[in-house]
């Protein structure tokens, strides 16, 4: 038997898929008895939880008032008046009132820089990155601490609230990534000394809880230093948090490095690229791209872990909120719940933004590249 094709077949569209709202509902929610039961159960759970939450947070909430009396009405919901009255403290801690514009300026410039960086194909992007990494930290340091250019000094012991959270988190994030990369490279190094030192560092820091690190930094460390040396408590905490998260970062980055095929190193070497150039130009761009989810995961973890600085007497965002629960002027049954809800909301917004941004970054970087 023989066969010879006379004409090639043309491409045709796939068979029709049922469309429209009803079609979607039938396909996704009510496709079988079991699926229908699960859908109904889901709807019931939403019915039970969402309306009371809305009632508490919005309908029955007290939005205005200057003291506990406002929130002591019958069936009162959330006491947002408390959050409104203490908002300044939640944001700045005990930062000198007249100088708070400096914090605002740092926030605004920071937000603007990050916002502009998110715009792809910005013509001045390169300079913006340089500004964000080199000039902005100096600017922020000068503005926040003061003592120069005629700005009154504001001691770090007065810093608090969201300001402190941001300072600890952003320093931790910005410094721990390069440090983690170096440690990851060290751990994969062929030089035994580098490797052993990196392994010891990583395992030592990962093996202790952050609380221990913070206690060491603020309570124990001064005991070992010669008497009279007294450096800033916030600085000590910053160093502790950064070194701690660098160890985690190192392992995330190492995971990415391990995923890069040996051929990439060989091709880079064969072209005459040395160790640093091969890593900076070829290996790391690919490895870091692979582990963006892990890196952002570590960032988010670090951001939330900043709340632990409370135990060494620094009042971060959550700490500033909690401190105000004991204000007799605002002692109501709803105060704590409202404060915690507010804290949760702000933390969630920030962490969710980080997560969304990382997803955008991933899909942008993967355009066209990962199909080999």
């Amino acid at each position, binding site marked *: 038997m023989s066969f010879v094709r006379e004409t090639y077949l043309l491409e045709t569209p796939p068979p029709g898929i049922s469309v429209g709202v009803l079609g979607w509902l039938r396909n996704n929610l009510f496709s079988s008895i079991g699926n229908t039961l699960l859908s109904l159960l889901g709807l019931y759970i939403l019915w039970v939880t969402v309306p009371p939450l809305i009632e508490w947070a919005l309908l029955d909430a007290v939005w205005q008032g200057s003291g506990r009396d406002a929130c002591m009405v019958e069936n009162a919901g959330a006491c947002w008046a408390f959050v409104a009255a203490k908002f300044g403290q939640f944001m700045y801690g005990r930062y000198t009132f007249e100088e708070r514009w400096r914090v605002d300026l740092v926030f605004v410039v920071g937000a603007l820089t990050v916002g502009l960086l998110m715009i792809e194909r910005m013509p001045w992007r390169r300079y913006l990155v340089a500004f964000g990494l080199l000039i902005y930290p100096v600017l922020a340091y000068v503005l926040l601490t003061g003592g120069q250019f005629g700005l009154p000094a504001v001691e770090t012991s007065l810093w608090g609230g969201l300001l402190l959270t941001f300072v600890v988190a952003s320093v931790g994030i910005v410094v721990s990534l390069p440090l983690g990369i170096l440690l990851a490279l060290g751990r994969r190094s062929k030089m035994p000394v580098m490797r052993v030192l990196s392994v010891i560092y990583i395992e030592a820091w990962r093996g202790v809880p952050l609380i221990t690190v913070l206690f060491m930094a603020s309570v124990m460390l001064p005991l070992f230093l010669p008497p009279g040396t007294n450096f800033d408590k916030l600085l000590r905490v910053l160093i502790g948090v950064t070194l701690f998260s660098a160890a985690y970062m190192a392992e995330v980055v190492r995971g990415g490095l391990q995923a890069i*095929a040996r051929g990439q190193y*060989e*091709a880079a*070497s*064969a072209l*005459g690229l040395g160790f640093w150039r091969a890593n900076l*130009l070829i290996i790391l761009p690919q490895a870091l791209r692979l582990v963006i989810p892990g890196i952002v995961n570590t960032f988010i973890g670090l951001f939330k872990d900043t709340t632990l600085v409370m135990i060494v007497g620094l009042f971060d965002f959550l700490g500033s909120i909690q401190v105000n629960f004991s204000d007799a002027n605002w002692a109501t049954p709803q105060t704590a719940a409202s404060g915690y809800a507010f804290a949760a909301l702000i933390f969630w917004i920030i962490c969710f933004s980080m997560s969304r941004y990382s997803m955008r970054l991933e899909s942008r970087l993967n355009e*066209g*590249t990962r*199909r080999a």
Partner: protein
Amino acid sequence: MNENQMAIEMTGVDKWFGTFHVLKQIDLSVKRGDRIVICGPSGSGKSTLIRCINRLEEHQQGRIVVNGIELNHDLKRIDEVRAEVGMVFQSFNLFPHLSILENCTLAPIWVRKLPKAQAHELAMKYLERVQIADQAHKFPGQLSGGQQQRVAIARALCMNPKIMLFDEPTSSLDPEMIKEVLDVMIALASDGMTMLCVTHEMGFARTVADRVIFMDAGQIVEENEPEAFFNRPQHPRTKEFLSQILSH
């Protein structure tokens, strides 16, 4: 023989992977412009041999001199050697995060310190030559295997190497793509490039090679001009190998 005419000089080279003796007393000299094909069964050490020439593998005994530079623990000199020795791999090893053009300009810019515009021009010249200039702004993942391998050849050529090493360049390609890569290699050979090719493309060896080297069990078993090598093989192992690969 004048030292300057020597591209590669290997004397008494030994190498072990752990306790496995992978290269045994290799002596090989390659003059400028020589085109050498190395063949042999898998595991015979032919890839390891050419990977020793740009020190992707480190030999443990003997001497290797490439372009007048002896390979030893001096890392600076090794990068010098590597800049003059281009290599093409079986699995292409293009950089997937860079465009075709960037793959080609990277080393000229960072190793040769060429200005961007000049590197760009150079890259386009060689991409033109391997007939893939129209794909310059695509990424490696968007190209077929044969196209990727041609880009890999262009990438190596952009460094203006004195020697080109090919490590089974067509072994992972579909039959239809093998020819387009071989055509590029043949053109390169006719321009007088010094080439060492590990390959089983015997047609290529017949037309292009000055010498064919047969390796087995980590040693050079037979070495001859292609005409004699294919028509009058001497060693029984060579005869057996040739009858295996030429019988189909």
